[in-house]
Every structure is written in C-alpha cells, then in structure tokens.
C-alpha cells in the first residue's frame, strides 16, 4: 500500500489536510511514458512501440491501480491523454468495475484548444491560467489528484514544483524514443517512500518531493 494519501500539517493547533498531486505512470528505463497500453494508443511523433507494457503485465499492477484510485478523487489530464482515455472508457457500461472508476471520478482536462468536454462524463475544462487554476484545485479540500500520461502537462507542473509524488511502474526495457516523463535539463530531487518488484520484472518506485 502507498503510504498515507493525505499528509497532515499543523497550523497552530489545527490539523490541516494537504491534498497531493500524484503523477502515476508506466515508464521505460529511459523515461518514456508514451502509449503504454496499445499500438495505436498514441503514435504522435512516429512512435512505433505502443503497447510496450503488455508483455510485462502482472495482476498486482492492476490491483495497485484500484488501491491508488481509492486514495484520490480527481484525475488531472492533458488534452491528448484525456481524449485517449475518454475514447476508451466513456463507452464502458455503468456497473463495469473498471469503467465506473474511470468514468465517475472527476476529471480536469487542461487544454487551450478544446471547447467542450462532453465526450467524457464528469470532466471540467481548464483553459486559462493553468498553473493558478491547478494551485487553486490543490488548495481545495479533497483526496489526492492523480495524473497519468499527460507529458506536456507534467512538464509544466514540474517547472512550477506542483507535483508532490511520483508513483512509477518502471519497465525493464529501453524504448529509445517517445514522450518523456521528466523534462530535459530539469533537476528534480526526490525521496523514495516505497518500492516493490513484481515477478514480470516491473518495479514500482514511489517517490515524494525531497
């Protein structure tokens, strides 16, 4: 299990819960997060290795997803990832355990080009003042906010030190190209708070901001 999804800070004698932004990704050893689930999931930039997580599936990875989602109440996504996820999950029937998790959770999509977010239920558009809007979101009471995929958005949030934790399933392969989790040239000091390996060779590494 992940260690505590809400940390407590003390201001005077009042305990105040702090909502975290947690980046949750499947990534290769060379920092690539593009199209982990399918060959046609995201071919932008001529990426030809989509679906690279498939051969390394282990059921503990799926179980971890449900554990993690119980600790959050919102997804924060870039436009491309929101469209990819929405395209897959919106059509899942009500009552599907996986579909219900993805479809009922509040989604915040960051985009300067979308004009409507009706394609995926329970979505809210963040169109302007992205950093300020996300700071405000983080200040609201609630559980964790999870991000997956969304490389452009993650880079913006890294630049503004808005990411509290990284929950990374690291796969034993080097892809050589593709969208990267960490932006080039950025120093990101981290502190390991949990790690575990599954028999297929994938390692969960869960970091907090150092």
């Amino acid at each position: 299990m992940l260690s505590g999804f809400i940390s407590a800070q003390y201001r005077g004698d009042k305990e105040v819960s702090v909502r975290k932004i947690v980046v949750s990704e499947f990534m290769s050893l060379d920092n690539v997060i593009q199209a982990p689930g399918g060959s046609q999931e995201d071919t932008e930039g001529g990426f030809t290795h989509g679906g690279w997580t498939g051969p390394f599936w282990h059921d503990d990875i799926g179980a971890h997803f449900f554990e993690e989602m119980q600790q959050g109440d919102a997804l924060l996504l870039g436009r491309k990832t929101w469209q990819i996820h929405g395209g897959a999950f919106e059509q899942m029937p009500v009552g599907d355990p996986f579909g219900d998790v993805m479809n009922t959770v509040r989604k915040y999509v960051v985009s300067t080009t979308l004009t409507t977010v009706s394609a995926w239920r329970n979505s809210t558009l963040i169109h302007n003042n992205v950093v300020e809007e996300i700071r405000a979101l983080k200040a609201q009471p609630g559980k964790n906010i999870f991000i997956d995929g969304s490389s452009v958005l993650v880079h913006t949030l890294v630049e503004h030190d808005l990411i509290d934790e990284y929950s990374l399933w690291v796969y034993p392969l080097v892809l050589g190209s593709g969208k990267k989790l960490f932006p080039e040239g950025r120093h990101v000091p981290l502190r390991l708070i949990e790690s575990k390996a599954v028999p297929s060779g994938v390692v969960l590494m869960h970091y907090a901001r150092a």
Partner: protein
Amino acid sequence: MSVDGAMARERIKDAFTQAGYWTEEPLIKVP
C-alpha cells in the same frame, strides 16, 4: 494474484480494443 488485478487487465483490454488502441500481439516480446 489478485482478482481485481486480473479483472483490470481484461477490462482495459476490452476498452482499448473497442477504441482501436489494442493489439493482440504485443510488438515487444519478453525474452
């Protein structure tokens, strides 16, 4: 093995197949 974990794989596979993202044969093979 977790029942939830196995179910997650099947549900993701179904959703990704319907959306046209999934390939039956992974492009990268585990040695």
